[in-house]
């Protein structure tokens, strides 16, 4: 689960990491008031940042500076009117603009290949890190945490020196170890600071000092661990999850809405993806990914059917079940029940093999369902039905 920058920053602050102050505004007027407070506290400019869970905010005009409260209001109004990669901006983050001396990249990452947490750093921060990795892999420093002992301070010091942060050693070590600590505290897959910046700050009597600060934050949480952290589920961004996806999750189904016209109901994630791919290969477009899981009973099947039919674009349905734990006759019963309940009649092609497939075949024949023997055949016929031709 991705969370917004402001929420990610809250988690970092709770773990003692240095993050400049911010406020979240939902209207231009709120942004103006927030800007007023930061400017009154001595800032020359404020930064206003769209809170959306898509990359490339800056390029899309979602990050802007303002030198007065009036300007902040105008800028915030413009950002709040934006759609970034199709996502409407509902909130902006307002904070004092930092006087940046140099930008770095630092992230704690769950690394599949090494099966460890790794700390990744680069002295080329503030830019797209994937681009740096592709163009100049030597510019990225990677240090693995120990699988049992964790990320020890000496490794944090190695990272600091290799990034050229020797002048800020204490802060850099605290931040590096803090990122890994944050990862474990909330079961994150990714805790990314880009940029981590050396910023210039004016102190008392005109003295100027430099310190390290986390200017941006991106955290991805492990969905499998959300249940054991109170409050994290509340950070889910409603815009990042289609209402149908959410209804499915609450019903114990995995559903992801797509743009096509052929509804898919499958048991198993890999097979559900393969079924979508075969629909596409047969010339159609899948309307959704839907995994009813292992051992699904009739009531889960009817719930799944409701979800599929709630999408008005769906004009054909493909049911593909390979019974292992899941019993084919149980699915067939659910399909029959669902058809009795549903308000909209859509052509459906059903393919059930494996455990209790014979029982399913009898039930489906009696109920006059259209069935197919193989997955390829089922996909072809669903596509034909979707185009209005006889299936």
């Amino acid at each position, binding site marked *: 689960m991705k969370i917004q920058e402001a929420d990610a920053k809250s988690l970092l602050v709770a773990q003692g990491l240095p993050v400049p102050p911010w406020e979240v505004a939902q209207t231009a007027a709120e942004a103006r008031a927030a800007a007023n407070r930061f400017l009154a506290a001595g800032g020359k400019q404020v930064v206003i940042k769209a809170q959306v869970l898509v990359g490339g905010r800056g390029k899309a005009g979602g990050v802007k500076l303002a030198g007065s409260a009036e300007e902040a209001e105008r800028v915030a109004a413009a950002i709040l009117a934006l759609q970034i990669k199709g996502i409407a901006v509902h909130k902006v983050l307002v904070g004092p603009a930092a006087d940046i001396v140099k930008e770095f990249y630092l992230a704690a990452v769950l690394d599949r290949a090494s099966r460890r947490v790794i700390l990744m750093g680069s002295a080329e921060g503030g830019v797209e890190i994937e681009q740096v990795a592709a163009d100049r892999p030597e510019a990225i420093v990677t240090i693995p945490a120990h699988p049992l002992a964790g990320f020890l301070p000496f490794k944090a010091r190695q990272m600091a020196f290799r990034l050229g942060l020797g002048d800020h050693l204490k802060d850099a070590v605290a931040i590096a170890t803090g990122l890994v600590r944050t990862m474990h505290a909330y079961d994150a897959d990714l805790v990314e600071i880009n940029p981590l910046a050396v910023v210039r700050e004016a102190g008392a009597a005109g003295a100027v000092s430099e310190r390290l600060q986390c200017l941006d934050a991106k955290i991805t949480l492990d969905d499998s*661990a959300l249940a054991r952290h109170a409050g994290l589920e509340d950070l889910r961004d409603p815009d990042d999850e289609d209402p149908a996806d959410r209804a499915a999750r609450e019903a114990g189904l995995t559903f992801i809405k797509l743009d096509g016209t052929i509804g898919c109901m499958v048991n198993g994630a890999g097979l559900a993806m393969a079924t979508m791919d075969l629909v596409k290969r047969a010339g159609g477009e899948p309307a959704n990914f839907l995994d009813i899981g292992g051992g699904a009973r009739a009531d889960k099947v009817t719930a799944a059917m409701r979800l599929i039919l709630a999408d008005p674009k769906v004009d054909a349905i493909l049911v593909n079940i390979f019974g292992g734990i899941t019993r084919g006759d149980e699915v067939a019963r659910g399909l029959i029940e669902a058809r009795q309940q549903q308000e909209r009649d859509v052509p459906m092609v059903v393919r059930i093999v494996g455990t209790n497939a014979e029982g399913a075949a009898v039930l489906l024949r009696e109920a006059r369902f259209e069935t197919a023997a193989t997955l390829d055949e089922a996909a072809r016929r669903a596509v034909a039905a979707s185009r209005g031709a006889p299936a």
Partner: protein
Amino acid sequence: MSILIDRSSRVVVHGLTGREGSFHGAAMLDYGTQVVAGMTPGKGGQTALDGRVPVFDTVADAVRETGADTSCIFVPAAGAPDAVTEAAAAGIKTIFCITEGIPALDMIPAVELVRAAGARLIGPNCPGATTPGQAKVGIIPGSIHREGRVGVVSRSGTLTYEAVQAMSDAGVGQSTCVGIGGDPIIGTTFLDALLLFAGDPETDAIVLIGEIGGAAEETAAAWAAEHLRDVPKAAFIAGRTAPEGKRMGHAGAIISGSAGTATSKVEALEAAGFRVAGSPTELPQLLRDAGYRG
């Protein structure tokens, strides 16, 4: 010979007295697997599966009393990493973790402790493995298999059944079929499985079934290009139509930016000499096209 399991494997089922454990434990026993023990803390001294299998309080007891050398774990996600570690500490050499939904960070120390004990972990979030005609561990339906010489390795469950059924129907049997699991942190990778198959004199060809997310398929392909050059190889990759940034059911099945796409995997596999199928039903024919005569 096969890999991972055979008729001599002696299996202890963690959670044998539970709903999943008893259902699949019975199916394993009926297939011919030596299910020698169950493990449920507090139920030591009882028997399970109609008196056919003794139950122990600890894995160490099961190992001492029955000579168990293989674990099959059905315990819930919160206790599964501990179960994996307990098995390794008790001297179990091959550990299958079927459990789904384990937080990824919990698996890091478990994987390390298994490695340090000189054991092997398969999974978590995997369907297990079958050596047709000899033994099955996990939840793969025994009926889909046919004895043969093709090694099958997959990240999925039901998609594997689909592919294996298509192979068996076409007369292409399997030496061993192993599901390595759909999670980001797993004990046995595609590459590990290929290394095992490469050392198995009873495996003559390879089928690899991958999906979007991570780069394990690419890593395995790079190794196969060099070391399995003359071995007939076919593959299927699920998720060509999956959108970026969405977790497609499996915790590990997610495209992040430009990483982990089906295209990248298909290209890497084709470059390594795999014949990549557009549908799992094409796998047996592709193996024959690649020179497999089984």
